[in-house]
């Protein structure tokens, strides 16, 4: 099956869109997601891989396993031989995992090389910019996309920066450069919204009208959602008919409100930059007050202190293996953070937030896994791999499409040279929708920026 352009349907478990396709909000969403460039990929040739240790992550690894991909989807995972005459890749001695998923990337919006002109990730003009969309800042020529694929990444969420209390929409992309970012979108993935608590908004806006404090951050957040809630309900909360509110009372022509209403409807998934436990609890309270839920806290270095609550409320935790200390709110980070979250039954995710880390996200998961074992929070290798596969897929609302090796899911897989939870593992081959997009023996460059520098003087 070819990938399809937006809008097909938002994925199950996330959206009420399918049931409400005719409402104003949905119609405006569809118009905002038109792709000018044809975003349809050709159907990949059928392929089978044999002889590898297949690590589905949702169940135990399969020694000497076989995996088949037809029409871009996984059609078989087990120990049988491929059908006669099938195209077979011998992966004896290799390890096969789902394609890795990074919930926190700024590739394209803060591309390499680092140039002022290409810094398109933070719309630092006001503390709330929900009308801004990351995909409108993504530079598809960022060489980082190819580097990410070479590290086994098949899906990533590109987020606006964290200067703003509400920074704008994030976008879930395939890291395969197209001419425009719209055509790189993961087909059917819900939009996301980036919010931030703590130090960043108050640092950026403290001298520019506020918020000046954490109190101000929360006040701004409540005001924004109070307005959105009123608009969604057809008024401004003060009994007056709000300009822009639709006759049906389901939406608004205001683009920022359109975004926030999407959050309140549950159609747009919230991704919140937050470090400290108390800050996280504060934003969760606002969610309970206005009726939104947070899909993932990002960075969340103090998640271990509230891991019971996060697990209970089904809030996933996107964190690093070991970053700390660069700011006061990152001072209480601990190495087994992810392992402690998982221990409490929560969804742990290892994210990169880095053009370097995204190139070896498997190693970051491996470090966090081993650090958990050292600290007495032991998990299986499959659980550690879930931190960079199915858990991030869930945080992005695409877990029924990718993130594990289950029949019916997209053919997003990585063939590793050795156990993927090792420093030395190399992604030998990477497949997206059954297309081989990376071959370590024959690397390709898709970035125009990197062309021609080898020409001799």
């Amino acid at each position: 099956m070819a990938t399809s352009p937006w809008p097909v349907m938002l994925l199950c478990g996330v959206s009420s869109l399918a049931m409400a396709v005719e409402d104003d909000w949905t119609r405006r969403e569809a118009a905002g997601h038109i792709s000018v460039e044809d975003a349809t990929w050709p159907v990949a040739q059928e392929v089978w891989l044999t002889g590898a240790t297949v690590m589905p992550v949702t169940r135990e690894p399969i020694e000497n396993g076989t995996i088949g991909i037809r029409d871009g989807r996984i059609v078989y995972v087990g120990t049988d031989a491929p059908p006669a005459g099938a195209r077979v890749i011998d992966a004896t001695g290799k390890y096969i995992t789902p394609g890795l998923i990074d919930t926190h990337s700024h590739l394209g919006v803060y591309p390499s090389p680092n140039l002022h002109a290409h810094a398109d990730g933070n719309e630092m003009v006001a503390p709330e910019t929900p009308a801004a969309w990351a995909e409108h800042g993504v530079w598809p020529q960022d060489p980082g996309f190819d580097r990410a694929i070479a590290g086994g990444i098949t899906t990533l969420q590109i987020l606006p920066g964290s200067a703003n209390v509400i920074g704008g929409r994030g976008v879930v992309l395939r890291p395969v450069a197209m001419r425009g970012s719209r055509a790189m979108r993961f087909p059917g993935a819900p939009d996301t919204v980036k919010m931030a608590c703590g130090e960043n908004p108050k640092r950026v806006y403290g001298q520019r009208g506020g918020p000046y404090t954490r109190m101000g951050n929360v006040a701004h957040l409540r005001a924004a959602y109070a307005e959105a809630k009123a608009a969604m309900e057809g008024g401004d909360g003060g009994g007056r008919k709000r300009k822009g509110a639709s006759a049906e009372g389901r939406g608004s022509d205001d683009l920022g409100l359109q975004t926030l209403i999407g959050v309140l409807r549950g159609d747009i998934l919230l991704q919140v930059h937050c470090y400290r436990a108390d800050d996280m609890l504060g934003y969760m309270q606002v969610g309970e007050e206005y009726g939104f839920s947070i899909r993932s806290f990002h960075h969340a270095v103090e998640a271990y202190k509230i891991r019971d609550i996060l697990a209970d409320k089904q809030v996933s935790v996107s964190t690093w293996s070991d970053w700390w200390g660069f700011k006061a709110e990152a001072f209480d980070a601990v190495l087994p953070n992810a392992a402690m979250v998982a221990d409490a039954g929560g969804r742990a995710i290892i994210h990169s937030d880095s053009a370097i880390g995204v190139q070896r996200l498997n190693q970051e998961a491996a470090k966090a896994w081993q650090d958990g074992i050292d600290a007495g929070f032991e998990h299986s290798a499959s659980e550690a791999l879930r931190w960079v596969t199915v858990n991030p897929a869930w945080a992005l609302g695409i877990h029924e499409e990718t993130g594990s090796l289950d029949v019916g899911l997209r053919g997003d897989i990585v063939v590793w040279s050795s156990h993927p939870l090792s420093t030395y593992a190399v992604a030998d081959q990477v497949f997206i929708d059954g297309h081989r997009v990376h071959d370590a023996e024959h690397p390709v460059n898709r970035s125009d920026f990197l062309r021609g520098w080898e020409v001799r003087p």
Partner: protein
Amino acid sequence: MIPLLLTLVHALTPAHAADCFYVSGVVAHTPDGPVADATVAWDGTRLLHVGPGAAPQGCQARAVPEGAHVTPGFVAMPTTIGVREISLEDGTHSNHWPGDQVAASVRVADGYNPYSSLVPITRLGGVTHSLVQPDGGLVAGQPAAVRLAGDTQAEVVVAGHRALWIAPGKLGSRPAGLAALRELFSGADLSGTTLGEHITSADRSVLSRARKERWTLYVPANRASDIEALLRFVDDVPMPLVIVGGAEAWMHAEGLARRGVAVVVDPLVYGPGGMDAIHGRKDNAAVLAEAGVDVILSSFESHNARALRFVAGNAVRGGMSHADAIKAITHTPGKVLGLKGQGSLSAGGSPTLAIWTDDPLDVTGRLHALWIDGRPIALESRQSRLVDAWRVLDGPVAPITTTHPR
């Protein structure tokens, strides 16, 4: 709070010089490469035995996991450990003097805090020594070589490493910076010039001594042409040079090797991160080592200097030999910093050693024990204490009443 700090910093009581210990059946990472099934023995002052064969009589055996590896302590450079507790909090910085273009007389060592939370945290990555850098202008000051154990500056600052941190680009343009450096080291009278306003008599005296005594110059540079210009600079002003960054250093591997110029590189960074690193490549470190350049591997991080061993593992992943990668975080930086007896696991050297459950460059290798100059180091840090404090969540976390005896 005080008792906690003292426990952390004092680690454990120093081993008695007469006590001697050994581990056997380990992989010992010596300057000549790994030695399998080796015995390593040490007392409070020196390594007594490294290699095949039995330990000296009377030494106590220390149990180690099967397949253990022993390395020297790792050397992280450059860092801001001990001079920058929290990056975004200027008030916690004591290595930063913006605006002073010539701060030759300023010594980072005077601002170094041996009680920094980064010290025990970094040690848990097997890192035992560091070069702490200043951050300023053209001549940023004198970096400090430190040992990551001990209570006072006098105890931890490694004497004898005479060096200056130089950043030509900080003067506005790189050629202007190099031109100014030629003037500064020639002893020219710059009073009356813009630069002259920054130069104290102490700076002048340090610059003159540095030139005469051939202090080491640390200079950040990534672009091949900048490295080339620096090589010409030290041809004119002969002083030991360490290139810091070196993303495109492989393009001048031969010239670097011939002049004995050391290069500090991060093998993870090729992207390119900046326009000065367009020609960066993942086997940069491997190519430099192959050409005989003194390669030092670095993460260029301070809070995460503990990850140095994984950086080295990635150099191996990028094509460097395992032995070269170990050397690039032990012997070579030890040599550049003038750490006598450190950085190599050989009899007679300092008893600074890390014992690992497995290959330390892979994530599966875990730190089993650490000794610095004959002192056993507790494998604890502020972070491990946080984990202990939050290990169990059962009901209200903070006790409402205290049961502490009065």
